[in-house]
């Protein structure tokens, strides 16, 4: 078991290295000369050359990749071309809103999606099932920012239940914090709910057709018992898998959601960096998000045995 877990962990390392290489290449091939930017407008050609040497920009691709990777492994992600602040510092300053948004979205989306999948699978083919699945297709089709604007118009502009924009740190109280994140989390989570409930329903329906479910029904087990003890336990693996895969969706969505609701998080940092072509920041953020995504899916793979003892590593 431990051997497989170790092998699974080790197998992500080459993929991570490849991601790092791809992300580095992005910056390497980015148009514009960073030396020119750092040296300023009034620099002489000699000064520019000196900056270039100091930044190591005169080195070959592989030497630069090596030293960049070395720095990344030490938690240094370069320096912003616009604000001259280290990218790692920028990310640290802005991680709280993003983590809060993601955590809240994950919690409400999973608690909403699993019961929806259960109801839908149990009532397969009925109007309730069709209604839930119809909502699912709808959730896939409405872009996050459209939903975000509709929600903010109804609940923030018209009804004034929630703030239109902005973030309240959790240190200023859980109530205000929740209040500031309610609309963003709802907007971000809707397509995620659609994804999880759709896959969960498919997994559950397949399981509900198995012989042991029929046996359970035949011996007179209550629907609650069949659904929770027999079906949901066995559908846990695909559901947990799709929750992990869907985190990629959440990350992309966070960029948009944070822009709409003016949350000072990493997503907003990304959107701003793109508009200003701040390549080191784009690079750092893409790397961070990709590694997070990979680690989440690695963790999902490693916890499979908790849900299904037949899976052994």
């Amino acid at each position, binding site marked *: 078991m431990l051997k497989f877990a170790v092998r699974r962990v080790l197998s992500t390392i080459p*993929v991570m290295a490849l991601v790092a290489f791809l992300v580095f290449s992005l910056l390497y091939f980015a148009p514009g000369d960073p030396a020119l930017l750092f040296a300023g407008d009034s620099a002489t050609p000699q000064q520019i050359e000196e900056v270039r040497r100091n930044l190591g920009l005169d080195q070959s691709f592989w030497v630069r990749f090596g030293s960049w990777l070395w720095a990344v492994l030490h938690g240094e992600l370069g320096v912003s071309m616009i604000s001259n602040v280290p990218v790692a510092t920028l990310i640290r300053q802005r991680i709280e809103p993003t983590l809060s948004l993601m955590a809240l979205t994950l919690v409400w989306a999973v608690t909403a999606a699993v019961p929806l999948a259960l109801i839908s699978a149990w009532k397969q083919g009925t109007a309730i099932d069709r209604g839930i699945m119809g909502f699912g*297709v709808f959730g896939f089709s409405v*872009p996050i920012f*459209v939903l975000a604007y509709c929600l903010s118009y109804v609940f923030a502009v018209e009804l004034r239940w929630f703030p239109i924009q902005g973030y309240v740190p959790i240190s200023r109280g859980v109530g205000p914090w929740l209040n500031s994140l309610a609309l963003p989390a709802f907007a971000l989570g809707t397509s995620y709910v659609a994804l999880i409930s759709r896959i969960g329903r*498919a997994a559950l329906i397949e399981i509900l057709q198995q012989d042991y479910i029929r046996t359970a029904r035949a011996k007179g087990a209550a629907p609650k018992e069949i659904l929770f003890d027999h079906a949901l336990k066995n559908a846990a693996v695909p559901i947990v898998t799709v929750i992990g895969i869907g985190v*990629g969706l959440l990350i*992309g969505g966070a960029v948009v959601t944070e822009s709409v609701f003016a949350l000072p998080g990493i997503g907003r940092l990304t*959107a701003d960096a793109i508009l200003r*072509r701040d390549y080191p920041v784009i690079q750092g953020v893409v790397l961070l998000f990709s590694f997070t995504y990979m680690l989440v899916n690695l963790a999902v793979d490693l916890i499979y045995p908790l849900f299904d003892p037949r899976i052994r590593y």
Partner: protein
Amino acid sequence: MTPPALLGLAVADPLPDIMQHTPPRRGLMGLARRNVPASIGAVLLIVLTGIALFAPWLGTVDPLAISPTLRARVPSAEHWFGTDMLGRDIYSRVLYGARVSLFVGFAVAVLATAIGAAIGMTAGYVRWADSPIMRLMDAIMSIPSILLAIALVALTRPSVGNVILAIAVAEIPRVARLLRGVVLSLRELAYVEAAVSTGSSSAKVIWRHIVPNTIAPVIVQATYICASAMIVEATLSFIGAGTPASIPSWGNIMADGRALWQVKPHIVLIPAVFLSVTVLAVNMVGDGLRDALDPRMAKTV
């Protein structure tokens, strides 16, 4: 079990059919009746394509013409969808915007499926190429797709072509992975082994036996890519990293309307409804195609 008649028991006559037996309808109408959502989606798509193609003849004016005196008007007889911050006619902009969204959606779907299918089939069929290709695909897939598209567009000059390429790159690994799986399971089948053992060349085996069996999953996947590409294009344009601002696209119209959102929500809402309906239509067609082409999956998902 022995039929009761043979045991000397009386048997009632079979009851007449309650429902009159009607043969299933054939042809286009039959198909449409069997899958109502898909046909609604198809009709919507045809209408939207018509709108995009015939935009200049549908009572539109120049979508770029600004008129500073008529800024941010609400819908009226003159301007059916109102005007935006620069006084541009939103009706014309939305109709012309349909061209960008539909074109990006279809182009990404075609490009990503074609390249992804080629890569996936190579990985599935050529054993030594499998591992390196799939590790590269894994790496690309580990970068969240919107983020990858954003980073790629940020590298290049914004243009519709670059947006299409950037979105396609993020979608290629998904197609490749699907196709590789299909090819791997196909090549273990007896008829493929028979073809190989009777001396068919690899090219012939792929073309005659593998490709025809991959068409159904590829088409279904292509429709979902089309839908997601439209959303990504609008998202990129919306955050200002997509289609150039000079080209009216639904994402750009919404980006322009952001500043006036609280007072003039129609500027954002009208293109939003068009975009959502289009994506919904593509998804409904995709679900219908999946039901028609892949009955095993249709039962569950």
